[in-house]
């Protein structure tokens, strides 16, 4: 079965510091990977998808099939980046997303 692991429950950094939220997955094929974000008192929303190779709000994520990872990175964290971040995976042709347990990012001034 597919599995997504986010090893850090909490990541605390200072404003302007680089950020890397870790995500590892278990699946032997070619997955579709996503990052979702939930800001305080807001609904869960899509941040970015690996398939589109986009950069959203300064965040990027690269799929590393050798290491089965999809880490989320930002070179300079901002206070408004504080939120809960979930990594999610699906398989081409399938419907459901498998989510990790989430990492809370706290950016202090």
């Amino acid at each position, binding site marked *: 079965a597919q599995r*997504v692991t986010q090893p850090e429950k909490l990541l605390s950094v200072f404003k302007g510091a680089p950020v890397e939220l870790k995500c590892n997955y278990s699946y032997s094929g070619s997955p*579709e990977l*996503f990052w979702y974000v939930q800001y305080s008192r807001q*609904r*869960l*929303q*899509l941040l970015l*998808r690996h*398939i*589109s190779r986009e950069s959203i709000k300064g965040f990027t994520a690269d799929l590393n099939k050798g290491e089965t990872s999809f880490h989320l990175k930002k070179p300079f964290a901002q206070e408004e980046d504080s939120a809960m971040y*979930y990594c*999610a995976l*699906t*398989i*081409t*042709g*399938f*419907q*459901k*997303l*498998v*989510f*990790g*347990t*989430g990492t809370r990012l706290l950016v202090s001034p």
Partner: protein
Amino acid sequence: GAGVSQSPRYKVAKRGQDVALRCDPISGHVSLFWYQQALGQGPEFLTYFQNEAQLDKSGLPSDRFFAERPEGSVSTLKIQRTQQEDSAVYLCASSSGLPGAGYGYTFGSGTRLTVV
């Protein structure tokens, strides 16, 4: 509407009571999903509809859980004889396509169910 609407936002049920949770997806979205999110966990898949057809219900934890989408728009998740372990946030999401094709979900705000 502009987004996915769920009601009620909060529900407190006595153990053994039946509950019904409603989801109104984005107009035109054919795919509708229900997820259960326990405290401190990520969302876990319950069931998936394509229009009115329930194509996957493999995540429903027991036969006390039932979902329907009779006209291919609004969906209802029903939980019969609620138990304390059913306490969670129930999330509805809709999409114009499938995640396997790279489409993202639009989530509702969720219904927080507390069984006492």
